[in-house]
């Protein structure tokens, strides 16, 4: 079977949607050159009128996309660093997101925000290593963190087709991943649909983004010890509570591993909702970055702050005890 890389899957989704829908266009810094890899080659096919290099004005071009979307376009906006989200938080959370309700439904804002290279970039230090999707979830922006090439393809397709703003994160540690898949099997993946990646009966592990393969590996490694179910929520907002609820209610045990900060992070929400609604039998465990984490430069310090497989195995053992 042919092999599809994560970056190629994103690129492919952009190509396919641009071919399907004339209104889809790509805006961002250096996108005609495809510096992040995601937009490589698009300008040659669709022209620099649809694959438009932006000046270093993230705020203005984020709202340009809002205006263009209200006027009928379907812009995909690429940001070179996930922490640029902070710079455009006003334009996303206070403008694009609120337009529909504030106007009483007169117009929606179908924009997709692409954040390649999220999470630690190993040695890129404090301002280039954040994983800020929980912030978007808090304000209610639909947000996907695909963990496989086919999900990256399918979720990006849905993001572009969605009438509301949607953010898509492509974690650094997955950018090089690949998957054996037939082109024909690529399809849209609905936002808000979790994937049960591995079935199990003893404990439910909810893992996000690049931690999904880590969780699967840990689960396999512990196969003799415990039957671990691994679920990838795929979108951190909205959450597929039905799929999560079924699993958690069945196992009664929960471990969440995600790469955002602990305090008010995605893990907190999963744990909170689980204990409120899904009947846990033992206290759950959450793995995350520390409160308020700033990733240091030196690699050993960087890694020391990130949730990992060893911690996950320990957490699984703890809830099984």
């Amino acid at each position, binding site marked *: 079977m042919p092999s599809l890389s994560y970056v190629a899957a994103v690129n492919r989704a952009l190509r396919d949607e641009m071919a399907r829908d004339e209104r889809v266009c790509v805006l961002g810094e250096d996108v005609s050159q495809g510096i992040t890899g995601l937009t490589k080659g698009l300008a040659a096919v669709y022209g620099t009128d649809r694959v438009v290099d932006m000046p270093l004005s993230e*705020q203005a071009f984020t709202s340009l996309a809002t205006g263009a979307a*209200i006027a009928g376009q379907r812009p995909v906006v690429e940001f070179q660093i996930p922490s640029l989200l902070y710079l455009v938080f006003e334009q996303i959370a206070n403008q694009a997101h609120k337009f529909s309700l504030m106007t*009483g439904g007169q117009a929606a804002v179908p924009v997709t925000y692409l954040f390649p290279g999220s999470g630690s970039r190993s040695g890129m230090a404090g301002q280039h290593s954040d994983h800020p999707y929980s912030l978007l979830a808090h304000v209610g922006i639909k947000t996907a963190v695909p963990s496989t090439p086919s999900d990256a393809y399918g979720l990006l397709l849905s993001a572009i087709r969605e009438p509301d703003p949607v953010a898509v994160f492509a974690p650094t540690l997955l950018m090089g991943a690949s998957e054996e898949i037939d082109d024909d099997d690529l399809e849209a993946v609905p936002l808000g649909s979790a994937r049960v990646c591995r079935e199990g009966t003893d404990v439910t592990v909810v893992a996000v983004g690049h931690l999904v393969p880590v969780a699967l590996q840990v689960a396999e490694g512990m196969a003799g010890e415990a039957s671990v179910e691994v679920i990838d929520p795929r979108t951190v907002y909205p959450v597929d509570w039905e799929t999560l609820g079924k699993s958690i209610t069945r196992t009664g045990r929960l471990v969440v591993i995600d790469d955002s900060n602990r305090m008010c992070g995605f893990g907190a929400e999963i744990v909170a909702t689980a204990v409120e609604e899904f009947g846990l039998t033992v206290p759950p465990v959450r793995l995350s970055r520390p409160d308020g984490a700033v990733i240091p430069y030196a690699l050993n310090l960087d890694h020391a702050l990130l949730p990992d497989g060893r911690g996950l195995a320990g957490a699984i053992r703890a809830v099984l005890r």
Partner: protein
Amino acid sequence: MRLIREFEEHCLEKALAGTIVGGIHPYIGQEAVAVGVSACLRADDVITSTHRGHGHVLAKGADPARALAELYGASTGLNRGRGGSMHAADVSLGIYGANGIVGAGAPIAVGAAWAARRAGRDDRVAVAFFGDGALSQGVVLEAFNMAALWSLPVLFVCENNGYATSLPVDRGLAGDPVTRAAGFGLTAEAVDGMDVEAVAEAAGRAVDACRAGAGPHFLECATYRFHGHHTVEHLMGTKYRDDDEVAGAWSRDPLTRQRDRLTPEAAAEVDTEIAVLIAEAEAFASSSPGSDPGDALDYLYAGLVPARPGA
């Protein structure tokens, strides 16, 4: 202008009475800008407005009755009662909304112009209204650059009313607006913003040039707001303009100026017409129903996301 003036007077009264909650930022004194500029626009042109947006919204053609209903929180309002004063919009008329955040509309207007070009409609103009204070907002300056870079048909209208809330323009702005704008490659000009014909003339030239592909323009309109920054201002006990200054501005009232150009009969006719419109608007707005609280999350998303309730 008379419509805006009477609408605003009506709103002042209703804000005081509490029928309009949250208060308003009155546009009184600045009417010539919205009216002069909008006179040059087509229905399919786009505008973005500000916290002080009633004038722009009405001048661009929004129904005064539905605008008032919006301020009353009625389901018949422009925004179905969801937006209120600071978010009044009529997207079908190219009114992409008042905006509660200073400067936020400028790049949205640039986006509308850019989209029109993509759709092969670059005779369509987008106008961004904003105040003197907004010239200090980074995103506005970024928008200048982008519009100029791509020669987009955008008219930036800066209503320089001398103050950003209590801050006099010379304590907020280094240099002058026209020079600043020109420094970004905008074709920039200043005009007496209290003379509707002067505004219409300058805006007309700018809009025509935009339509003809001459790139973005900037118009500084020197004007004055006759009332406080917001209807609750008097509660704050602030004092940043002396009475003489305000009185002097009233003597340049754009409405009086324009009235002097009309025959008394024509002026009286306008008055009657407007009085009827306002009375109709009041009748419509005050008899319109509110919305069911159970629908408070309606329109949050256009797509199908079941937003979980909070409590």
